[in-house]
């Protein structure tokens, strides 16, 4: 590749041990200026640990880190910052109560004498943001911005601090397709200007559109470094997972049966979802697509009773009381919300207690939890492929993929007639994704009516019988069969209608 320039950062034979696990074992990589390197592997393969070592957040137990060819100890994130290494992760590090301009210059505010030079700060912030084509009021409070804009401000801060190495750790996982594309364009632009980039993402299309090479880790070891986009996706996945993933989305052997879920004029009380009607049959997967803010997330919340809503929802003909998650659950609507941390995990509890949370009414008599609890947890852990050394382990000590499998498993074990899954594979690695898809297929074969809300179009196309597209708070179209392509879905998601022609079948 770019062998004529010397590596900006090089890692040689680094290992890192956590209690009970060897997170990194003799791993090496190098990034040259102007190069975009994808760091890939399943959850728990050591990518985050490696990026934290380069970012100064963790210290290696063995091996060396070289910056500009010299052996360097990156003692902490502040040292990394001085070396021009900037980390951008899924969790934003902006100060929400400060303005955009203050955030861009946080920690290095321009001064005049002993005082902060507010005027210069604002002018320079405006220039920096304009150069990146980010249109935002520099005096706006960061907390008032959308997640997408916050992410762009974060990038602007990184760029303006003269970053030489950008580390993107799942930076796009909470962004819409459009915002993701903007962010990747910013990253490519920075690379063209000679910034080195190390990116971690579970979304293959991003890696193929942006990175020049991929470093693959598995179980903490380096599997290999391959050129992108020359390497076929199947080969890259095989390297990551260590086996062939033939049937990524799996398949199901069933035809949709009776109508199980009937939705009539369902609208959320906050107006984010306009009256929407649709039906889902037993053994059918219906996908919901749409941009961030299109109302698709709100549709899931309204179905699961998580937000106040009006309209009519029926399960097997019986009306469900809206706006009460307990009633929705007992009526047979199992909801997995999109934001795992905010709305699904009990961070201070064990894997077992996280899983039994949803089962409590089913496994207790007179308010006392049955002795069968431990057995059920062990069975569910085995059935849903949750990798944990013990059911008593804190759930936050599991990888994201395994947390998600535990969350899905606790709902799937209920045997609900209807499942509403919002972003079921967000932040989950390819191996775990494939396992989750297989679980979904089995669930559907067993007769469940499944609604999947997702920002990942390939996932919807691979799984769903038909996909409804939300636009500005309402369902604006339905795609199935030949029409079920990214082009069609995107067209409706962006403009509310298809550019080619009207759909054959009425919705």
């Amino acid at each position, binding site marked *: 590749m770019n062998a004529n320039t010397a590596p900006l950062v090089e890692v040689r034979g680094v290992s890192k041990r956590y*209690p009970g696990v060897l997170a990194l074992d003799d791993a090496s990589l190098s990034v040259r200026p102007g190069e975009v390197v994808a760091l890939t592997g399943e959850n728990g393969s050591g990518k985050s640990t490696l990026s934290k070592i380069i970012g100064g957040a963790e210290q290696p137990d063995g091996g060396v880190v070289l910056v500009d060819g010299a052996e360097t100890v990156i003692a902490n994130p502040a040292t990394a910052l001085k070396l021009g290494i900037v980390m951008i992760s899924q969790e934003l590090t902006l100060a929400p109560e400060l303005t955009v301009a203050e955030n861009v210059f946080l920690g290095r505010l321009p001064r005049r004498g002993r005082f902060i030079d507010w005027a210069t700060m604002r002018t320079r912030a405006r220039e920096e943001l304009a150069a990146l084509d980010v249109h935002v009021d520099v005096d706006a409070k960061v907390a008032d911005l959308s997640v997408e804009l916050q992410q762009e401000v974060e990038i602007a801060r990184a760029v303006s601090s003269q970053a030489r190495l950008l580390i993107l750790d799942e930076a796009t996982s909470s962004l819409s397709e459009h915002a993701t594309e903007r962010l990747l364009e910013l990253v490519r632009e920075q690379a063209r200007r000679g910034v080195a980039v190390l990116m971690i993402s579970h979304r293959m299309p991003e890696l193929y559109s942006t990175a020049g090479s991929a470093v693959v880790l598995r179980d903490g070891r380096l599997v290999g470094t391959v050129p992108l986009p020359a390497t076929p996706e199947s080969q890259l996945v095989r390297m990551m997972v260590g086996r062939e993933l033939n049937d990524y989305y799996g398949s199901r052997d069933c035809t949709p049966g009776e109508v199980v879920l009937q939705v009539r004029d369902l609208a959320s009380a906050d107006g984010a979802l306009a009256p929407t009607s649709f039906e889902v049959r037993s053994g059918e997967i219906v996908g919901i697509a749409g941009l961030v803010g299109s109302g698709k997330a709100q549709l899931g919340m309204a179905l699961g009773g998580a937000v106040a809503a009006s309209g009519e929802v029926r399960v097997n003909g019986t009306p469900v009381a809206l706006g009460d998650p307990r009633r929705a659950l007992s009526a047979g609507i199992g*909801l997995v919300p999109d934001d795992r941390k905010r709305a699904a995990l009990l961070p201070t509890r064990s894997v077992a207690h996280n899983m039994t949370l949803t089962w409590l009414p089913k496994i207790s008599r007179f308010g006392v939890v049955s002795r069968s609890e431990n057995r059920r947890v062990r069975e569910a852990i085995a059935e849903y492929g949750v990798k944990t050394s013990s059911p008593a382990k804190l759930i936050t000590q599991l990888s994201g993929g395994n947390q998600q499998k535990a969350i899905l498993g*606790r709902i799937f074990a209920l045997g609900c007639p209807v499942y509403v899954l919002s972003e079921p594979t967000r932040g989950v690695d390819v191996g775990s994704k494939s396992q989750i898809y297989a679980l979904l297929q089995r669930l559907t074969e067993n007769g469940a009516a499944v609604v999947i809300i997702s920002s990942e179009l390939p996932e919807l196309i691979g799984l769903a019988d038909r996909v409804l597209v939300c636009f500005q708070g309402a369902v604006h179209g339905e795609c199935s069969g030949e029409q079920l392509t990214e082009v069609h879905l995107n067209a409706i998601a962006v403009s509310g209608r298809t550019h080619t022609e009207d759909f054959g079948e009425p919705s």
Partner: protein
Amino acid sequence: MSQDTTIRRDDAGPASSPPSGRSGPGALLAGVWRASGNSTGVLAGLILLVIFLSISQPIFLTWGNITNIVASNSVVLVLAVGATFVIIAGGLDLSTASAAAVTGMTYGLLLQHGQGALVAVGGALLVGLLLGVINGVLISYVKISFLVVTLGTLSVFESAALVMSQGKTINVFAIENFKPIYNITNGEVAGIPYVLIFDIVLVVVAALVLRYTTFGRGVYALGSNREAARLNGINVDRTTLSVFVIAGLAAAVASLIQVGRLTGASPGIDSTLLLTVVAAVLIGGTAYTGGAGGVGGTVLGVLFLGVIQNGLTLSSVSSFWRGTVNGVVLIVAVALGVARDRGWLRLNRGKKA
């Protein structure tokens, strides 16, 4: 185990009290240690403290002194068990000591007006329940912050207790119907105080409720992640109400023990009581952010503060120092917890790996 203790005592001669404190319950303690989780720090501190006091104060390990520690800390223990439920659920009840003053006053007034023993006890419990309902309804259904509500009721209950008796202490010693409570709080069977037996039963029941009932699981879930609890079918409002009702009942029970010991119902409130109760819970490893901890840790926290207090008394240190010591212990204990959570105390983990 007791035999083992005796042999050692014989071997070691007169200066034997420290080993007997260590080796006798040693095997038992090793088991407790492994199961202690978040309260390992306070357990270690308690053991060190007991060893130190056993050496420096010969009177410390006598049965008389131990029952004294139990008797003088039962009020704190009962309140702290109630507070443990509230804190695990992610709340805090600042009004607990004031509520105890009101229920104690209720009990005293009912006795004074010639009511029967059962009516007086029942009345106190009912009022405790009612005070808990007031807190709970304002917090869970009217949706006012628990800090605001219980800060308000702290003041309201405190003044209500004063109003009830015009500020006077009600002496109940001579009242016939006071005898059952007096006998229970001050009596003993085979050298074991009834209060100790009651404390043990209370703690075991509370621990079982938290661990093995759907209500207990709901309390943890609520403190761990309110939204996740709500979406997974936990009745958030009712659970919140329930923990405050438990705190109110705990205040009533504590006040009965208090009146039984002092043979009088006083409207005045020990200003350090609330701090001691909350400190005991937090020292015991229950997270102030909710969702983690348990009554086992709370017992250790109460014992720790009680033993320190006892040690200060035995060492003839002025009781004015009590608040300073309690406050410092609280901050150190919580700081150690924070340090552990952030992985600053890596020594142990490094060895394991």
